[in-house]
């Protein structure tokens, strides 16, 4: 259950006690951790999608600019529509609907499409866009930013992934250190061997999460 600062400290301590005394400045460690967050993000999104559900209000619009942290669409809630939700033309469940003229966009049965930066809506509507967000970069000075502490409303990553994050950041730190220190091949191998072993064990322990995926009923 950690903040950005906790994880920075853990990475620093483990590096200093490790096979190479790779002392790094906090900005660098922060960048490595941010890289690790992004590495873990797709796994977290798959297993714990509710971390990333957000909403944005759409007011009488036919072209709604997607939020900056938009990753992919979940649904568009339209209270006045007959079926409450808009159909999303290029959503994977609705691909086949696009060429059916009977399903043209109407107030009672609206149709949307996600484009590069906007949500294009067939008929003007007021509602709510639900979407999955990206993880933002966390500044090195933002040490109190919550990363894995649950129940506070803004954790980015489930605590089961903490060790994976730390190891991933350490691997990046070692790789960086080796490039700068110009070590020979044998030294490089020694440095990476133990950390790679840790990482392999973590990968093994992540396998059971695959069973958490729910079956998606046929549409």
């Amino acid at each position, binding site marked *: *259950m950690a903040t950005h600062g906790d994880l920075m400290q853990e990475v620093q301590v483990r590096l200093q006690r*490790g096979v190479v005394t790779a002392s790094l400045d906090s900005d660098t460690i922060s960048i490595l951790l941010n890289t690790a967050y992004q590495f873990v993000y797709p796994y977290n999104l798959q297993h714990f999608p*509710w971390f990333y559900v957000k909403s944005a209000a759409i007011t009488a619009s036919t072209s709604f600019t997607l939020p900056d942290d938009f990753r992919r669409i979940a649904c568009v809630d339209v209270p006045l529509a007959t*079926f409450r939700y808009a159909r999303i033309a290029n959503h994977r469940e609705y691909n086949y609907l696009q060429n059916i003229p009977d399903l043209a966009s109407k107030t009672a049965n609206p149709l949307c499409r996600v484009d590069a930066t906007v949500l294009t809506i067939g008929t003007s509507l007021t509602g709510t866009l639900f979407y999955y967000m990206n993880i933002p970069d966390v500044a090195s000075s933002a040490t109190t930013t919550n990363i894995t502490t*649950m*129940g506070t409303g803004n954790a980015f990553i489930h605590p089961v992934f903490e060790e994976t994050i730390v190891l991933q950041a350490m691997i990046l730190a070692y790789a960086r250190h080796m490039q700068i220190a110009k070590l020979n091949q044998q030294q490089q191998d020694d440095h990476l061997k133990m950390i790679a072993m840790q990482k392999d064990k973590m990968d093994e*322990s992540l396998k*059971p999460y695959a069973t958490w995926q729910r079956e998606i009923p046929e549409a």
Partner: protein
Amino acid sequence: MAVPTYNKADLRSLIKVSALTYRAQIKLDDRTIDLNGHRAEMDVWSRYVQIDERFFRKSASIADAANLPSDFGMLANNAVDGAGLTASYIDISETSFRQANKWDLASATSPSYYISAQKFKILPIGSSPLTIDYYFLPTDMSNPASADSTVSSMPNELKYLVAMGATRRCFQTMMEQADTLNLSIEERQNITGAIESLADLYNKEQMKEAKHN
């Protein structure tokens, strides 16, 4: 039925004793041992939530837009309830999003809910609090502020599995820090062998539990 538990000091002792089985001594500070203990608990949690979830099931009444409980791990399936409501409740956070245009989800007696960035949201907004069932996370015993007598929220019957995983993690940490800890060649060999052996044993224990259930 009360579930027997163990405390922080118990687990740390058990890890140290387990290590001696492999002719190796844990040369780590207590904080690091506790951290490995906690991470091992998280490993066991993530597996047992699927194998024997009853240990980790808990309920809480959640109002609209409230934070989830601090020990929230994940939502149990079909696990939302509320007094005075006539129909089942629809989770629009995952699969139902994809089926959204099949149903009229707006109903005072049959509210929909979803979890947004770890806040519980009920549609239509303003519904009464709903009771959710969820799987709680183990207590974070790696927190230096918690006393040795802090009781773990893991059941006793998982203690040895946790200790096994924690010992393996401690050995891995020692190998990661082998030079700093001045480990001898013999110690390194013992520990490397112990890591493999513990991993093997750990997986067999997991399989045994899975069959049992």
